[in-house]
C-alpha cells in the first residue's frame, strides 16, 4: 500500500519556521493545546472514563452492581466456557460486518467515482441526497423496509397486482439483516471513498494513459493505490460500526439472529448481569481497537481532509 507517499505532501505549512519567530512559535503551540482542551475534557469524561468503567465492571463479581470492590475472572470464564454459545454471536457480527464492507465497496465505488469525477456541479446535490438519511433515525428507515417487504406490503402488493405472484419471503432472515446493514452504513463508505478518489491527480491518470497503460492497469496501478487512504477509512468505519450494529438484526431480522451487541444488551437488561455484559463489551472493544489502531496508524489525516 502506498499510504507512505503521503509524508512529503503533507508537511506543515502553517507554522512559521521556529528559528525566525521562536517566541511566536511557542505561543502558537500553547494556543493549539488550549483549543484542544475542551474536546479533551469532554472525551476524557464522556468517552475514556465510561470505557474504563466498563473494563472495571468486566472484572466485578457476576450479577453485582458495585464496581472497584472485587476482582474476578469469572465473567470471562463464563464467556469462554465451551458450552456457552455466545461465540456464535461474535461470529455472526464479524461475518455480517465483513460482508457489509465487501458489498458496500462494490456498490459504492461507482458512485464515489461519479461524485469525485463526473457529476461536476451536480455533485453537491447528490451528496446532500446521500447525507440526509443520516438525520433520520435508523430504526425509522429500517421500519420503512419492513413495510416494503412484509406480506401485504409494497413489494408483495405490487407483485400481486401486476403479476398475480406473491412477493419473496425475505423478511426476518440473515439476508434481510445484511441488506439493512448495507443500507444503513452506505454513507459511511461513500464519503471517505469519494475523498480518497478525489485525491488522485488527473494528470497522473492521463500520463499513464499517454504512456500506453490499459484501463485496467490505470485502475490497478494508479487510481486504486492513490485512493487507498480514503477507501481504507471507509472500510474501517463501516466495519467498526457494523460489528456493533444491533437495530438491523432486531427490526429487519426479527431476532432470528442474536448479534453480539444484542447479547450485551440482554445481559444489561433482562439478565440484569452487568459484569457479564461488560465482559462481552470489553471483548468487542478489543476487536474494534485492534482493527482501528492497525488502520489508523497507517493514515495521514491532513492529507485526507485536504490541508493545502
Amino acid at each position, binding site marked *: 500500500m502506498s499510504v507512505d507517499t503521503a509524508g512529503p505532501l503533507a508537511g*506543515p505549512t502553517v*507554522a512559521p519556521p521556529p528559528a525566525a519567530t521562536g517566541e511566536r512559535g511557542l505561543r*502558537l*503551540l*500553547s*494556543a*493549539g493545546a488550549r*483549543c*484542544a482542551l475542551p*474536546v479533551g475534557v*469532554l*472525551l476524557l469524561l*464522556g*468517552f475514556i472514563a*465510561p470505557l474504563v*468503567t*466498563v473494563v*472495571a465492571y468486566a472484572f466485578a463479581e457476576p450479577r453485582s452492581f458495585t*464496581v472497584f470492590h472485587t476482582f474476578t475472572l469469572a465473567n470471562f470464564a463464563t464467556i469462554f466456557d465451551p458450552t456457552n454459545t455466545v461465540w456464535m454471536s461474535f461470529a455472526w457480527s464479524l461475518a455480517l460486518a465483513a460482508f457489509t464492507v465487501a458489498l458496500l465497496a462494490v*456498490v459504492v465505488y*461507482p*458512485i464515489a*467515482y*461519479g461524485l469525485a469525477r*463526473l457529476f461536476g456541479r451536480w455533485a453537491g446535490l*447528490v451528496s446532500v*441526497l*446521500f447525507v440526509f*438519511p443520516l*438525520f*433520520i*433515525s*435508523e*430504526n*425509522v*428507515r429500517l*421500519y*420503512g423496509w419492513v*413495510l416494503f417487504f412484509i406480506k401485504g*406490503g*409494497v413489494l408483495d402488493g405490487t407483485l400481486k397486482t401486476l403479476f398475480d405472484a406473491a412477493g419473496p419471503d425475505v423478511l426476518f432472515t440473515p439476508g434481510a439483516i445484511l441488506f439493512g446493514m448495507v*443500507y444503513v452504513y*452506505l454513507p459511511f463508505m461513500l464519503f471517505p471513498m469519494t475523498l480518497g478518489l478525489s485525491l488522485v491527480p*488527473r494528470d497522473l*491518470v492521463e500520463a499513464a*494513459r499517454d504512456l500506453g497503460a490499459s484501463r485496467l492497469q490505470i485502475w490497478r496501478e494508479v487510481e486504486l493505490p492513490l485512493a487507498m487512504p480514503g477507501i481504507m477509512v471507509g472500510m474501517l468505519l463501516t466495519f*467498526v*460500526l457494523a460489528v*456493533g450494529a*444491533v437495530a438491523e438484526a432486531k427490526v429487519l431480522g426479527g431476532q432470528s439472529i442474536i448479534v453480539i451487541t444484542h447479547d450485551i*444488551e440482554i445481559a*444489561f437488561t433482562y439478565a440484569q448481569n452487568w459484569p457479564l455484559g461488560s465482559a462481552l*463489551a470489553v471483548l*468487542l472493544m478489543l476487536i*474494534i481497537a485492534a482493527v*482501528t489502531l492497525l488502520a*489508523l496508524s497507517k493514515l495521514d489525516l491532513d492529507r485526507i*481532509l485536504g*490541508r*493545502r
Partner: protein
Amino acid sequence: MDQTSRRTKALIAAWTAFVVLAIYMPVACGALASLGKGRYFTFPMRAWSTDWWSRTLDSIEIGQLVSTSLLIAACVTVVAVVIGFCGALAFARYQWLGRRTFQKIVLLPIFFPQPVLGLALLLWFNAIGIPLSWQTAVVAHLVWIVPVVTLVIATQVYSFDPTLEEAALDLGASRWQVLREVTLPILWPGIWSGALFAFLLSWGNFPLSLYTTGADSTVPEWLYAKMIAGYTPMVPTLGTMSTIGAALALLLGWIALTVARHRQRAGG
C-alpha cells in the same frame, strides 16, 4: 474531461440514481403507511386518509416527546458548536506538539459502535451516581457529535489562510477583535454547517438516547418501542413528520447559508 467513455458515464449516473431511489424507498413506504385509513398497512392502498396525521398532531404524549427531543438537540447544538470550533482550530489551524495524536483521538468516538457507547455511559453515570434524564442524554450525544462537528468545521479551517489573523494582529487588533472580525466571519459557513449537523444528528439519534435518557423519552425511542410492541399507524406518521422536520431544517439552513454568502460577496 472525456477520460471516461459516454457509456460508462451513463451507467454510473443510472446506478447512482437507482441507489438514491433505493435509499428513499423506505421513507416513501413510511409516508404511504401514514396516509392509510385502517389500523394495518396494506398495499395497494384501499382508502386514503389524513386521520393519523391529525391524531398524531393532537396527541399530548407526542408533543412531550417532540419537546424533549428539541430541547436535547438545541443544547447539543450550542455546546457542540463552541467545543467543536475550538477543537477544529486545534485540529487544523495550529501547528502544535500533540496535534497528530489529538486528530486521531478525536476520531475515536466516531469509530465506535453507538449502542456500546450508550451502555458504557449508562454504567459510568451509574457508577458516579448521576441519575439519568434528558441532561445525561445531552452529554451522551455530545460525546459522538462534538467529534463530527470538529471534523466539519476543520474542513473549513483547512482552507483558511492564517496570515489574515497575523496581519490583523500586526495592525494592532486585540485577540478578541481578531476572533470576532476576522476568524469568525471567514469560518462562519463551516460553523453553520457544523451547527446543522449537530442539531440534525441529535434529533435523529437513537442508540445513545436509548440508554441515557432514563425516564424521559425522545421521538426515536418512542418509535422504536412501538415498532417492537404495539404498532399503530402513528409510528410511520410520526416518523414521516420527523423526516419532514429534518428536511425543512436542512433546507432553511442551506437557504440561510446561501443568502449570507451572497451578502458577504456583495458586501466585500
